């Protein structure tokens, strides 16, 4: 019988103050995810693949931009896409119809992709396929301006889309997401003449208010297509990435 509380549980022990002690940990809460992300990044770097995590609210035009991007990059660089959505293969099927290699992750009820999910997807979707390598892998994250920002996937760059139909104060409303961006793409810019409540200047001021120097550019990928500045940025990033990878390879020799 327990001598302290009188219960009949054999070997019942009550901790005494001497049994307590506090351990300092000081480790990030996302350390398991971050380790998986670092593992993904090593894998991408070995294959010389530039990986871009594309994030936005639902309907900002991520899939449409990717369709046009594949058309513009044809013959210059090869791309593949990993799609994240709660349900359906719709987006991956859309991209495949445009001849783009695509893989769908359905997250169920999860509002974001994490590094483990991407890792599993890479096992099913090799970056080298039928002798063809991948130059750029886009991860089209779940449409959501909150949760995806907290999870490193192993990407090299974060691109956040802000469509002109959403409101130019989005950066101030979602500071964590917009601070994580390496580039902000203002999409659906062809609608600007029809809208009286979106100004590119205001959107940029809202972004600067977050204490960042993140560049912005505009695209339209609807009936009118103009994605030239985006393609320029993308090919520039690809060149830089290739140079970095080569320098790294030389340094490791």
């Amino acid at each position: 019988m327990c001598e302290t509380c009188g219960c009949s549980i054999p070997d019942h022990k009550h901790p005494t103050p001497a049994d307590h002690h506090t351990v300092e940990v000081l480790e990030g809460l996302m350390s398991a995810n971050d380790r998986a992300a670092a593992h993904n990044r090593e894998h991408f770097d070995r294959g010389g693949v530039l990986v871009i995590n594309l994030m936005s609210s639902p309907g900002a035009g991520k899939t449409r931009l990717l369709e046009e991007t594949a058309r513009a990059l044809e013959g210059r660089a090869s791309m593949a896409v990993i799609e994240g959505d709660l349900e359906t293969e719709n987006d991956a099927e859309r991209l495949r119809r445009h001849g783009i290699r695509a893989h769908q992750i359905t997250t169920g009820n999860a509002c974001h992709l994490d590094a483990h999910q991407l890792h599993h997807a890479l096992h099913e979707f090799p970056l080298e396929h039928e002798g063809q390598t991948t130059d750029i892998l886009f991860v089209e994250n779940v449409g959501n301006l909150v949760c995806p920002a907290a999870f490193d996937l192993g990407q090299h760059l974060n691109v956040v889309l802000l469509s002109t139909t959403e409101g130019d104060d989005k950066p101030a409303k979602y500071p964590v997401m917009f601070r994580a961006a390496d580039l902000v793409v203002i999409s659906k810019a062809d609608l600007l003449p029809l809208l009286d409540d979106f100004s590119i200047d205001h959107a940029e001021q809202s972004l600067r208010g977050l204490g960042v120097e993140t560049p912005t550019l505009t695209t339209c990928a609807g009936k009118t297509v103009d994605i030239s500045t985006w393609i320029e940025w993308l090919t520039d990033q690809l060149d830089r990435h290739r140079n970095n990878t080569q320098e790294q390879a030389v340094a490791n020799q």
Partner: protein
Amino acid sequence: MHELSVCQALLDQVRETARAHHADEVGLITVRIGPLSGVEPDLLEQAFTIARNGPLTSSATLSIELAPVRIRCRDCEQECEVRPNRLLCSACSSYRVDLISGDEMLLARVELQGAGPSQNSPDPERKPSHV
């Protein structure tokens, strides 16, 4: 609402620490959260009451220390505390600033019961299992 995922990761980390110290139970868990971490403290607390059920942590409690958002200006070197969506230097209004606090999401301390102080610490070389 990704706080449940964050909370599960937190509890995995706590259990790993508890096992490394041969503890029977976990008491107070202290985390440090900044507004720019993307984690909402109230939601983390709610998620904690669900996620703690399991080995070692079923009677654990959570304490959240809130970190302020602080920046240092690259132009005038002034340090100041700012709102999470207004990170401009309070002295010269520059946006060329470095964040010095406010995006933390740290497991600070864990109170362990039934364990003697131990030299064991989790293996720093842990890698994700490759499946």
